[in-house]
């Protein structure tokens, strides 16, 4: 029972854009200062989305494995760079970039693969119409969680180094000495997902589900996809974060359980 989707043309985008232009004028008039940012963001939005629209159109038309892999690789690189850019204090050497990239890769790729092979099972399994949006949703959430929790943990260890050293001096293991900060970081990273899951459908209609409904899907079918997606996202976020925090712990303490903040920039 798929109804025909209303086709939008460029004028429709223009009409919607009028709202943002109006907002920009208002903000500029009162000199609130974000007009420039708003303008840049709006232009980026239009350019980036049209570009990705064409890329996906090409990808969907010619769904070869190689192209899907390249697309996934580009997404991974961009997301890893984004994680690194969010760090106030980075790990020195290869691990600065490698930490974000490797934990993101392990968690979101593994979870996306599981989602494709076990849960959704498209034919072929890498069918870009499924694999790319799935990977994208898992990866963007995982990226935010890893970026946020890593930044929090390195900052916490840096700011509380005197306390951590005293705990070590009293014979605590490095794990015990940083446990409160680890807990705090895991919480910070996973809470947005937990909250979104708990309020889904009550406070907000999740984006993907809304999209499917707008595209003509039956709501009860769209809901199934949304539930699966949230479980996959929770897995990606949780496992990715645990891996990232584990690597930080492993890098910032040496084999004699000494806090090695010299390994931070």
């Amino acid at each position, binding site marked *: 029972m798929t109804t025909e989707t209303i086709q939008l043309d460029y004028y429709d985008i223009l009409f919607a854009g009028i709202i943002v232009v109006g907002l920009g004028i208002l903000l500029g008039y009162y000199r609130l200062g974000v007009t420039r940012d708003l303008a840049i963001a709006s232009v980026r939005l239009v350019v980036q989305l049209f570009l990705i629209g064409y890329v996906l159109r090409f990808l969907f038309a010619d769904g070869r494995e190689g192209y899907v892999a390249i697309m996934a690789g580009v997404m991974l690189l961009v997301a890893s760079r984004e994680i690194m850019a969010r760090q106030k204090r980075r790990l020195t050497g290869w691990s600065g970039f490698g930490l974000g990239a490797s934990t993101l890769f392990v968690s979101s790729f593994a979870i996306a693969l599981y989602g494709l092979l076990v849960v959704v099972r498209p034919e072929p399994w890498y069918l870009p119409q499924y694999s790319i949006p799935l990977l994208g949703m898992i990866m963007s959430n995982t990226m935010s969680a890893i970026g946020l929790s890593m930044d929090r943990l390195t900052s916490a260890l840096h700011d509380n180094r*005197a306390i951590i050293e005293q705990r070590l*001096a*009293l014979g605590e*293991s490095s794990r015990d000495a940083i446990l*409160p900060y680890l807990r705090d970081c895991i919480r910070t990273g996973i809470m947005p997902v937990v909250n979104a899951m708990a309020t889904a459908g009550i406070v907000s209609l999740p984006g993907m589900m809304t999209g499917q409904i707008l595209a003509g899907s039956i709501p009860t079918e769209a809901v199934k996809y949304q539930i699966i997606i949230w479980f996959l996202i929770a897995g990606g976020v949780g496992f990715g974060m645990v891996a990232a925090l584990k690597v930080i712990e492993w890098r910032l303490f*040496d084999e*004699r359980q000494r806090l090695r903040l010299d390994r931070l920039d």
Partner: protein
Amino acid sequence: MTLSIGNLQFLDWKNLDLTIGDGEVVCLVGESGSGKSLLLRAIADLILNEGAIELDGAGRDSMSPRDWRLKVGYLPAEIFWWEDTVAAHFLNRPSKQALESLRLSPDCPGWNPNRLSMGERQRLGILRLLDREPEILLLDEPTANLDEANSSLAENRLLDYIREKRGGALWVSHSSAQARRVGDRAFRMKDRILVALDSETGRKDG
């Protein structure tokens, strides 16, 4: 218990040798920034360092870092508290007697550490260290924040413990007077080497 330190290196300090044993207190004075605290932290294996450090012949690397730090206890100059109560920082709740020996309120284990004065933090820090029953004490100005009366109580408490345990202590002090009073030997840390305090003054202590 004998702590022997051979060829210790940390940051740009080199070839430090020192032996402390059997109830002996070795005092260390020197200007701030001369590396006294770094030396204590290096011995406790809290900062990157190299050297042959042994406790009664057992090499430091043959022990887990936790065991080493429990045996060689480091008291920092500024004591931090991170749990909600004072007592939560102790393995065994400090006895009334132990608290009284340092003129601390018998109720203070139940307090939130935010309530403690500088002097109370310092004295409770000493009890917190002794609570782990270390063999060797690495003390970083343990009486710096205390008035005269409390300072001598704390001195005596530490000296009693060291004698009882027949361990040893490396005691960083802000005053040469205290160094001569509590130390069996005393050194000044200067230009990255240890100079015996006696040789400076030409005086020999008993």
